[in-house]
């Protein structure tokens, strides 16, 4: 019985259009053996939910510069409403400490700050994906 590679969505919601970070992360997760779906910026929350549902994603990575992370709690609620409570969400970007707390309370699994090592990101994403796949059984 083979296990599938982690399936990860790398996306951006909100208004900021800088997607260099997402591209770097996408390449890096792919090189670590993961199956990655990378979307252009400015995605609607409903689009991300549909994407995660249909692709049966393990992890959603949101990159946020500016203040886009403030709408992440809405995404978390939309995921729950769609029955996707088990999908792990990680956020990377410039996130003030008080906002980080709010994100974690909203159900975000992990926040990465500027300067997080790519290795750390890869390992965290992988173990989150594995914890999701295992909790299913």
């Amino acid at each position, binding site marked *: 019985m*083979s296990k*599938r590679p982690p399936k990860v969505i790398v996306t951006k919601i909100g208004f900021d259009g800088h997607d260099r970070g997402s591209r770097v992360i996408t390449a890096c997760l*792919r090189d*670590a053996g993961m199956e990655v*779906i990378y979307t252009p910026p400015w995605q609607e929350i*409903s689009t991300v939910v549909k*994407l995660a549902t249909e692709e049966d994603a393990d992890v959603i990575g949101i990159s946020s510069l500016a203040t886009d992370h403030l709408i992440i709690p809405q995404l978390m609620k939309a995921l729950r409403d769609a029955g996707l409570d088990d999908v792990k969400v990680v956020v990377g970007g410039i996130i003030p400490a008080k906002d980080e707390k709010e994100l974690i309370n909203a159900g975000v699994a992990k926040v990465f700050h500027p300067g997080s090592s790519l290795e750390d990101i890869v390992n965290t994403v992988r173990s989150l994906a594995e914890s999701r796949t295992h909790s299913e059984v």
Partner: protein
Amino acid sequence: MRMPVEFRIEDILSRDRRAIARAVTALESGDERMHAIRFSVAEHVGHAHVIGVTGPPGGGKSTLVSVLIEALRARSLTVAVIAVDPSSPITGGAVLGDRIRMGAMQSDDGVFIRSLASRGHLGGLSAAAADVIDLFDAAGFDVLIVEAVGSGQSEVEITRYADTRIVICPPGLGDDVQAIKAGILEIADAFVVTKADLPDAARTEEQLKAMLALRTDQSIVPPVMKTVAVSGEGIAQLVDWLCAREHKGTRHLGSPANAARKLLSKLIRADGYARHLGLELIEASPGSATVRMEVQAHHINFNGRCHGGAIFALGDTALGLACNSYGRIATLVDGQISIASAVEGGEWLVAHAFEVSRSRKIGSYRVNITRARNGQYVAGLHGTVYLLDQSLQVEGS
């Protein structure tokens, strides 16, 4: 081990998106639920029109699929798309990019797009593609579009699973138009010159038509159509042609594997002993059968373990189905078992029987019995069967 209850077949049939998505994952991972899904959907396939789209890398397949989706939706047809992207042979990783290029209608529930990585499978598809096609078909989508990995000439695998095969050919390939003809020329149901807004389009069309004139079979000549994605030019014509095609049942419904599945599900249902032991058929093809059993209280011996006779019965049932799968009666004349590991109550065992040899009168079959949980070898059975000159008579379903 109990099968994890994270989706139910009823939910798939009633088109619950989460259930469908999770079932696809199970099919992709090849885990034990794969068999149960295959069997449950087998009776419900045959409704969808399966369209395969193939052609050279960057040729405009995903873009064409995206405009097709819109056009089909405008005709109130529901659409599921399977987009296959290549996995890196070195890391196994993949960026699944087709879907994003199919971006249109993102929030429409009448459209379901699923990306699959090829995971080392050659031939332009993923190993699970055939099963995923059946799954979407059973879920009731009207049209299924499969985009295969564009890999030059080797993507002919799609021909086996599609009702309608579209080969795209953008202008400017030069001599590569010649390359397309190898193999694909004979199987394409239609050619589409994509990016027809580019200067060389007319020439590409001419070249294709000239090559089609060389086909050995001239009874059906596939049409050559031209499309421009941005303006939508040529799309209506393509969709009209697709919708007019008679497609039902042209796919693998009459395939030997499907016939074997149908016959063997009848046989196991008609078998009182198999029912008594709780045996379940999970896969079949001509010459092979896979049966599973959950070890329950009535299988347990005085020592608190699964009775050897129950293990033998499991293996013998798989063997019996495998050797009867051609519809001719076969009967066991000699069989030996060797048991490598003790089995506890509550475990699931899987017996896979396959043909070693078969002549006019005698067949030789082997069965491997493993634990469903981890594939660990539990027992092996070898049997010789005698083939009667009689066909099986089974009552209806």
